[in-house]
């Protein structure tokens, strides 16, 4: 049986806003094994982003435990968390969060800047490779405001891939993309998944979820459904099945 790469127990997250308390997560428990491709589904406001932020070590739960690779994240210092975010996790934000006035290439290089093991030369070549993987090899020096929403999203994906993390957390990474590009991204993620990377992917679209091996559904801060996908669709095949003509 493969090792559990992440485990959450009774995870709660509350936001205090003045006298009111918003309970975004009301006790979520599940675990993900190494090499799984999990999609998280749920309606808007159900707590998907909140949970993913905690999984990405960006946020701390109000209550409950989160074990990443067997380590309880609660016990880690700020520096250790930063190291985890840098080496183990590739995070794709719902709102991209690219640095303004900074080229696609430099945005992609960013995580490598905080990894002293990577030389300047290697940094650039790895960033170029990551951008090529998301089909942006011809947009290296474009600034975010010179890119379309979908292209910006792809830069964000490239940035998450570049440091070769063991786990990719993506928040609606295909939300702004057309079907073809979404399938391309899914094909890329499936390929990475086959290479052994664990992927947790938040989405609204059931046809995207069909490419994953398991779907967890959240509702009102609780897991309401957790289901293995018996027939994982291949994104590559789906891509091939799409009509070839692009000039509409």
């Amino acid at each position, binding site marked *: 049986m493969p090792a559990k790469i992440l485990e959450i127990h009774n995870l709660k997250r509350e936001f205090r806003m003045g006298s009111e308390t918003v309970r975004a997560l009301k006790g979520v428990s599940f675990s993900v094994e190494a090499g799984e491709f999990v999609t998280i589904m749920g309606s808007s406001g159900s707590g998907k982003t909140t949970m993913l*932020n905690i999984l*990405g070590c*960006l*946020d701390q739960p109000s209550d409950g435990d989160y074990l990443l690779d067997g380590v309880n994240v609660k016990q880690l210092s*700020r*520096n250790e968390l*930063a*190291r985890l*975010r*840098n*080496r183990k996790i590739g*995070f794709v*934000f719902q709102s991209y*969060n690219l*640095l303004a*006035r900074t080229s696609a290439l430099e945005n992609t290089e*960013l*995580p490598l*800047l*905080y*990894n*002293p093991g990577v030389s*300047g030369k290697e940094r650039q070549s790895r960033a170029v490779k990551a951008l090529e993987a998301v089909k942006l090899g011809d947009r290296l020096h474009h600034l975010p405001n010179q890119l379309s929403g979908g292209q910006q999203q792809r830069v964000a994906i490239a*940035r998450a891939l570049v*440091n070769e993390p063991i786990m990719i957390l993506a928040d609606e990474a295909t939300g702004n993309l057309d079907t073809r590009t979404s399938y391309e991204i899914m094909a890329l993620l499936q390929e990475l998944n086959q290479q052994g990377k664990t992927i947790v992917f938040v989405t609204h679209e059931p046809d995207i979820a069909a490419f994953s091996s398991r779907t967890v559904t959240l509702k009102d801060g609780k897991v309401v459904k957790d289901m293995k996908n018996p027939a994982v669709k291949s994104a590559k095949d789906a891509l091939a099945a799409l009509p070839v003509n692009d000039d509409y």
Partner: protein
Amino acid sequence: MNVLNLLQLAWRALLRNKLRAFLTMLGIIIGVGAVITMVAIGEGSKQSIRSQLSSMGSNMVTIRPSSNQTVGGGARLGASGLQTLKVTDAELLKKQATYLTAVSPAVSANGQVINSAKNWPTSIQGVSPEYLSIRDWKLKDGISFSDEDVKTSSKVCLLGQTVVDNIFDPGEDPIGKTIRFDKIPLKVIGVLEEKGENTFGQDQDDIILAPYTTVQKRILAIDFIQTIYASAIDENSSALATAEVTTLLRKAHKLQSGEDDDFTVRTQAELISTISSTSELLTVLLAAIAGISLVVGGIGIMNIMYVSVTERTKEIGLRMSIGARGLDILLQFLVEAILISITGGIIGVAFGLTASKLVSIFLSWPTLVSQSSIVLSFAVCAITGVFFGYYPAQKASRLDPIEALRYE
């Protein structure tokens, strides 16, 4: 992140906001420029005072009478009316003082000098021939008087250039002419080299030198002397010379051990150090004022760094979310602050050097740029960058990644 990355990052952040970076630097530029210019002015004037003073003969020792008796109410008699110095004192010093090389008694009188129709108010100084070597003064023309002239109180004199200019026609040779000082006819045998103004703005060339016996007997009709000028063997032995003169004169004047001296001994070295320390104080004051503007510049950096941290909260959140540690963020902003202050410092040094040059050209004030002021102000502005950049940078480094990312 290595140093190169940090510098590159900081440099780009500055270039992104060129005008703002420049305005922030302006405080530092003015601060450093002011420190360098002010210290250059202070040092320059100190240097020029020093060189003027040593042009008066840096080994010179001056002995004047002073009262050792307090007259009612504690006031002391002024030196002018005192008659405690005698020619014999000067002769004694000349014979016995081992730290003195030349000794000259001196008396002086003010009066009108006349050559045919021209006259000029000036002063006459009665001295011995050694006076010229004590003052390091040379003759431009003619010869000096001799010891024989002193012995016979002969009616000869040496003229300063200002006197020559005022009582002789241009091109007229004064040597051999007879002038009158207070009705006493004196034959001009030499003309003194020009010395210009002294530190106190007095024209040193507005003078007539004559044997002291001549001035004593024929002009003033006194038998005491007003001053003894002497030369210490070198600049460093002024203190020893002073002590020796004091011992010799106290013995000659038969002063008891409890009694005060009835003379004062001043050395040029002493005067130089007094005046130097005054101008030193001036330099320190100027530097302090300039230093304050450096601090003001530092506060400007701090202010802009706070603005920058706030503006870039989202960027900080993003960097942290992809693995930047607090330290990385701290260094990023610190290096930016230091870069502003150091770039400002470099421009400030250039500005200070130029300003010092301009001051000496257009205001003809002497300036002397000291290396220490450059090093010091540069160090201060680097420290300013660290000091004033640290708090904003620390604020940035302590942000919470998700909070920072959500910041609008």
